[in-house]
């Protein structure tokens, strides 16, 4: 029998106000095997830890039970303290009497009773604990970044700076992400391209960074330090080693009617295209959905005009398999589809646009070469009505909504970019009336509120507290905007030429499949969940998986870059290690009981279980070959699925054996 010490924590008043801690400590003295029991104000403090260590030495303890907060909080702290005093860290058990007791109960009597039961349960478990030693696994010194926007690029640059190899996988033909489509950035109004494109070039030129553009991750296996990823390089039908990016093919291609996604469909491109002039890598891509040569075998113009001989209509997808120590999700965002918001007439009028479309309309490389034109006049830009005289901005379109069409969260960036748009328009076209309908103006951030106030005070943007109820296209091509002005308590009708919807943002559609491959958790909105909302914001709860940018939650550019660098720091910390200490709580098959049914192999989400034929001695001393399970301890994550699946009870989880669990249940029911 183990000699057990019980340590009951007050956690200030967190526990002590609802649980009679003295009574719990007293009650534990009666439990079998308990030779020492005490309560203390803060067990996690230095004093508390010293108390545990002294008790281990003085009372020759071989097992420890700490009744305190959740093991997620301080299990590691107490295990470390115990191992310093010379006992195996896995001889420490936590009874969670805070989250699962004092915080959820009001009555001291019942809470104390429950705390005693929880403590007794932990004591019963420790009696069956065995010392465990964690194995070690090597670390592959290479990182994978999924997504090549500003978040992924910054993370990759920082990891490369520390001397580690990084691969960026980007599904678009070029890296750069959403920021390539943005015209100016708040609150400084510097040109997005001017600060972004040098970073794209840095990525391309960095020897440690390898860019797989127009590629997607197909499969990820393994675990922290030892991931294996299959990357699909999609066929561009262009030999990237030969293509010089001269662009002749993109001018000669006869298929001119392809919607240009870079300009959000406001203009068209050819079937062979380079997304924009500063694309990295700057090579052409054939859009198989529109290329007549690929569809019908008739054309071949691009091949004829290409002097480098780079066109290859027979190119196939290529699968690359690579090992990684760490993986960073940087999958980014998209504006939501707003077709369900009929009242804003987005699908009825060309002159109702999203804010991202406005970025393209104001960009020098956009469809109107930077002149602000009503989209309905894009083909007749000289018309005197082409320039919008009255512009209405509608904020929170699809954000903060509970209506089933939108998103429940605040998209965070819209208040600032709308102020930016309004200001830029008033600056460039002072004859324009600009109205912004807002519910709240949210501007937390350095120099953000000053920026918004400048739009109001210096640029005379009309900010109106209220929401637009309806946008009705008029026969003369203008838009009747019906809205409320809550401060004046009036309903307004504004005759507008252009309506801009500050559309909510959502995680990219591919994020969910990436999360599934990574076995990383997501919230109900498909944002990746962080390991701890406050203290571990750039790590996923899945070891070795890190989060960068909007895939974790809405963010502006400065915040994205900060988080990207933080994720890189975490990756560097991991890759700098030569070996990782694993978790010793892994599955262990009892070969004598195993009947070789493969149930465990089928449920194992990590592929940690394999079967092999082994020779066993029978009752009559003859030898027989049987098929039995074996567990790769480096791959096993200790989830316990196999122990439940095994029909013969042959599979056990070290540290959580069937016997231990039953002992806990018995202790609870006693």
């Amino acid at each position: 029998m183990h000699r057990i010490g019980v340590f009951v924590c007050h956690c200030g008043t967190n526990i002590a106000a609802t649980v009679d801690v003295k009574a719990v400590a007293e009650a534990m003295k009666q439990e079998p095997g308990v030779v020492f029991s005490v309560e203390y104000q803060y067990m996690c403090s230095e004093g508390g830890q010293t108390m545990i260590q002294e008790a281990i030495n003085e009372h020759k303890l071989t097992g420890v039970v700490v009744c305190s907060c959740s093991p997620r909080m301080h299990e590691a702290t107490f295990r470390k303290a115990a191992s310093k005093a010379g006992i195996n860290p896995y001889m420490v058990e936590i009874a969670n009497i805070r989250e699962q007791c004092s915080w959820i109960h009001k009555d001291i009597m019942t809470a104390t009773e429950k705390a005693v039961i929880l403590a007794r349960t932990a004591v019963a478990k420790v009696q069956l604990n065995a010392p465990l030693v964690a194995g070690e696994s090597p670390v592959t010194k290479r990182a994978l970044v999924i997504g090549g926007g500003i978040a992924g690029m910054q993370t990759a640059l920082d990891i490369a700076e520390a001397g580690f190899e990084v691969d960026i996988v980007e599904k678009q033909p070029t890296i750069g992400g959403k920021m390539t489509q943005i015209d100016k950035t708040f609150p400084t109004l510097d040109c997005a391209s001017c600060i972004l494109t040098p970073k794209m070039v840095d990525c391309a030129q960095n020897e440690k960074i390898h860019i797989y553009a127009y590629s997607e991750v197909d499969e990820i296996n393994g675990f922290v330090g030892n991931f294996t990823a299959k990357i699909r390089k999609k066929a561009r039908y262009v030999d990237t080693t030969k293509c010089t990016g001269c662009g002749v093919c993109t001018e000669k291609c006869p298929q001119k009617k392809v919607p240009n996604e870079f300009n959000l469909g406001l203009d068209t491109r050819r079937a062979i295209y380079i997304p924009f002039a500063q694309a990295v890598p700057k090579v052409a891509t054939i859009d198989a959905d529109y290329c007549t040569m690929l569809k019908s075998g008739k054309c071949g113009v691009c091949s004829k005009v290409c002097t480098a001989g780079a066109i290859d209509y027979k190119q196939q997808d290529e699968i690359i398999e690579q090992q990684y120590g760490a993986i960073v999700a940087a999958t980014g965002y998209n504006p939501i589809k707003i077709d369900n918001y009929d009242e804003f007439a987005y699908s009825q009028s060309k002159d109702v646009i999203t804010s991202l479309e406005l970025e393209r309309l104001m960009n020098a490389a956009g469809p109107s070469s930077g002149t602000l034109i009503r989209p309905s006049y894009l083909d007749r830009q000289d018309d005197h009505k082409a320039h919008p005289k009255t512009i209405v901005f509608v904020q929170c379109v699809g954000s903060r909504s509970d209506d089933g069409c939108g998103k429940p969260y605040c998209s965070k960036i819209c208040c600032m970019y709308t102020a930016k748009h309004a200001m830029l328009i008033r600056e460039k076209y002072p004859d324009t009336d600009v109205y912004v309908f807002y519910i709240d103006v949210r501007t937390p951030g350095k120099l953000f509120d000053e920026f918004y106030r400048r739009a109001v005070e210096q640029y005379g943007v009309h900010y109106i507290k209220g929401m637009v109820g309806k946008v009705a296209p008029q026969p003369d091509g203008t838009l009747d905007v019906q809205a409320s002005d809550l401060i004046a308590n009036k309903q307004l009708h504004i005759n507008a030429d252009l309506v801009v919807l500050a559309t909510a943002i959502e995680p990219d559609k591919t994020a969910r499949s990436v999360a599934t491959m990574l076995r990383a958790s997501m919230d109900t909105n498909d944002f990746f969940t962080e390991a701890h909302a406050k203290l571990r914001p750039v790590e996923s709860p899945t070891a070795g998986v890190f989060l960068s940018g909007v895939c974790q939650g809405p963010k502006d550019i400065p915040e994205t870059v900060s988080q990207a660098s933080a994720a890189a720091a975490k990756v560097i910390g991991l890759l700098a290690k030569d070996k990782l200490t694993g978790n010793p709580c892994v599955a262990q098959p009892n070969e004598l009981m195993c009947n070789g049914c493969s149930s465990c192999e089928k449920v194992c989400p990590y592929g940690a279980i394999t079967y092999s034929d082994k020779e066993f001695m029978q009752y009559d001393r003859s030898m027989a070959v049987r098929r039995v399970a074996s567990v790769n301890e480096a791959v096993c994550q200790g989830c316990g699925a196999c122990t439940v699946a095994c029909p013969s009870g042959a599979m056990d989880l070290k540290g959580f054996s069937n016997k231990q669990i039953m002992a806990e249940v018995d202790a609870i029911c006693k």
Partner: protein
Amino acid sequence: MDRKEEILRISGVNVRKCMRCGKCSGTCPSYDEMEFHPHQFVYMVESGDIEPLLNSDSLYKCLSCFACVERCPRGVEPAKVVEAVRLAAVRQKGNNHLKAENVPELLDDETPQQLLVSAFRKFTK
């Protein structure tokens, strides 16, 4: 029962969900006819300021077109609040909302007489 509680119970609306965006009033076709507007109905019921609503013509200016219900981003359903206040007014004891002597002046060629008959039943104690 408290008048506010009664209205909340009849409507089944959680007025606390309102985030004061004013989209209901931005979308209301009868806005200019009303003394109190859809967003005010929600706000005034929430703050227990019921009397002015009960006594206001605005109650009967609401067309029950449900545009506000359709477009409310928070699912507050202002038209249901208006309807609940209307019902509360009808249920007030001893209140005659339509007197027999007022009927002749409401008669015209376009109003179906059945409407007046049913209104007379509903609104007269």
